[in-house]
């Protein structure tokens, strides 16, 4: 009986669907490129289901090296893909080479159901339409905190460190903290705490670096205070390792991506003891400041410059049709959706608290990738204890300056 109902509901939705989708010009080629994770699979898959029949060709390519080859793929005319699904930093990477087109006309035509806050506008022009949000935030194990005599969920870095100290002192865990610190994540760690301390990476209105100052030192010291209690291998940890440690019950406090919340809270790969006591909360603040140590990210769709208008229209219409309440209803727990109809569950608590706490969006500045990369490369010396904070900061500036000069920004 129950099954029948679902089947009926499905058919009904299907019928409604076909009628409601505005798929744009038919017979065009739609070619979507994106990274490979569940939320993007949901959006691109729904777009294909809605409008695939209408298009002359509809391909979805989801690769884990999208970022590595997309600029080269989009440079020729016609471009290899009609749409690239991007995030803050990758939109910058495409825009630096002028490979995404403004979407204002397409949004006016096909975007009736889109939320105004999904629009990513740059200089007044819509360049991307976001569909999901993400950020780092704090994960805590309430049972362990309780056992160690820590009251409530830590809200500041000092409280996190104090809690970690208490856990260690109680002999529960030697290294209660997990955080992502390998490669790219290391530069991101610097951003988190530099922004939390109120820093700006660049001097206003220019590409001059601006990290070798007290704020930078304070940021590094905040990171160091956490890594004292972090797993000794933290410099080789990325999300997979930290998630693994968490699910194995080997950590009590974590700074991890919100997008891992769903996977951590579900019943796979972990014991009920861990999942039932894991609480997601805002990223910690620092030193009496109010900004959570996190950067806010979005993922969204763009349309290529080097394709015909008809292809652009067909592609956008297909993707817009996928960013709907129906799609969200079906994939509610795959992401923290920015689309109407989303029912935030416990997995979304951390990201929304972080966003409400006033965390900064990851900067969309053409040269920010160079700064990020410089921080990733130079921070290791400090965290290993081989170098002073000042020396590390001056190394970051020097590495950034070299790269940005070559790229023509300085």
């Amino acid at each position, binding site marked *: 009986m129950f099954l029948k109902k679902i089947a009926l509901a499905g058919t009904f939705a299907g019928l409604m669907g076909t009628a409601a989708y505005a798929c744009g010009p038919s017979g065009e080629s739609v070619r979507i490129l994106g990274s490979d994770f569940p939320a993007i699979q949901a959006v691109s898959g729904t777009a294909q289901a809605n409008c695939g029949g209408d298009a002359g060709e509809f391909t979805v390519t989801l690769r884990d090296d999208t970022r590595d080859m997309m600029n080269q793929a989009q440079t020729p005319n016609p471009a290899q893909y009609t749409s690239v699904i991007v995030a803050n930093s990758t939109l910058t990477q495409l825009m630096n080479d002028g490979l995404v087109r403004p979407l204002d006309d397409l949004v006016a035509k096909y975007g009736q159901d889109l939320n105004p806050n999904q629009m990513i506008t740059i200089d007044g022009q819509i360049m991307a339409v976001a569909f999901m949000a993400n950020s780092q935030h704090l994960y805590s194990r309430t049972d362990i905190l309780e056992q160690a005599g820590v009251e409530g969920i830590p809200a500041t870095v000092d409280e996190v460190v104090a809690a970690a100290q208490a856990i260690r002192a109680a002999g529960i865990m030697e290294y209660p903290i997990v955080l992502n610190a390998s490669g790219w994540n290391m530069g991101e760690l610097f951003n988190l705490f530099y922004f939390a301390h109120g820093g700006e990476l660049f001097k206003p209105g220019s590409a001059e670096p601006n990290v070798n100052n007290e704020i930078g030192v304070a940021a590094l010291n905040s990171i160091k205070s956490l890594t004292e209690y972090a797993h000794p291998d933290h410099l080789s940890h990325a999300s997979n390792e930290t998630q693994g440690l968490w*699910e194995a019950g080997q950590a009590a406090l974590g700074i991890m991506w919100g997008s891992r919340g769903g996977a951590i809270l579900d019943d796979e790969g972990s014991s009920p003891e861990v999942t039932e006591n894991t609480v997601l909360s805002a990223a910690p603040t620092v030193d009496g400041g109010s900004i959570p140590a996190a950067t806010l990210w979005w993922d969204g769709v763009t349309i290529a410059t080097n394709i015909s208008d008809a292809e652009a229209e067909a592609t956008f219409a297909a993707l817009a049709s996928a960013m709907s309440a129906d799609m969200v209803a079906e994939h509610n727990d795959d992401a923290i959706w920015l689309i109407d109809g989303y029912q935030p569950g416990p997995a979304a608590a951390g990201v929304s608290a972080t966003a409400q706490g006033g965390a900064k969006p990851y900067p969309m500045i053409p040269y920010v990738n160079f700064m990020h990369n410089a921080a990733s490369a130079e921070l290791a010396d400090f965290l290993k204890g081989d170098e002073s904070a000042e020396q590390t900061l001056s190394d970051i500036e020097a590495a950034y300056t070299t790269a940005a000069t070559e790229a023509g920004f300085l």
Partner: protein
Amino acid sequence: MATKAQSRLSPLKVVSIIFVIIWVLLASFPFLWTVWGSFKVQGDFFSKADWTNAIFGVQTLEQTGSRFTLDGYYGAWVEEEFWRSVINTSIVVFFTVTISLTIGTLGGYALARSGYKYAFWLLMVALVFRAMPHITLVSGYLLPFFEWNIWGILPTTIIVLVAINQPFTLWMLHSFFLNIPKDMDEAAMVDGCTRFQAFRHVIIPVMWPGVITTGLFSFLLAYNDFTVTRMLLSQENETIIPKIQSFLGSAQVEGNVMFAVAAVVSATVPLFILVMFFQRQIVSGLTAGAVKG
């Protein structure tokens, strides 16, 4: 006929046998571990809690009701259609090895028979070519390949693999041909054959051991290549190594890593058969050729 001295178990022989046993364990252990683990769930094989889970399959028992599961194999072969990548790999490997050996044999033969200085310098230049980091080459290819609309297809990848493995192939075949006595083809030429006829009728029949050995190495290079195949192939044309990488890349989804493990184990089977089959030729090939340099 073994003499008494040879058949007796001297201390030296014991030491050498123990040494081989240690090496065999070291060489095979990670692989055996992988084979065993491929029948487990991710929580066991990549256990953070206790590595013995990978042996006893505690979570596997909990999740699937048995200590062994074929989920990884099912996921890789049925859900993710790993066989498509196997077909692509077969095509890439077959053509890469055939073309490499064909043009490499001609070139290697010429280099071995020419005494002019430029032959030496060509060999040296080939070495310098081999020194170029592949990542630079591949990034350089991307834009022109997209411009000419030849990115993503198998022939492009095959040609690139052939080209970047040519220096190694040339060197190996060159040293092999040095060992085939010059008199053989020269005698044929005295009898009125052209150089090419001499090559065809005299050299080709005796060159197989060396060619097969070189072929084994080109095979492994093409088969194991990651940088080229990952960056230059579109998703429909993915070979097994980028496919396995894509199982690892989307690791947010629990279980996908096990597809990779199962895929690796399955991918080793044809290699096992191949090595067993060609084992004698490999050894005799080297014996006759490259070895003497």
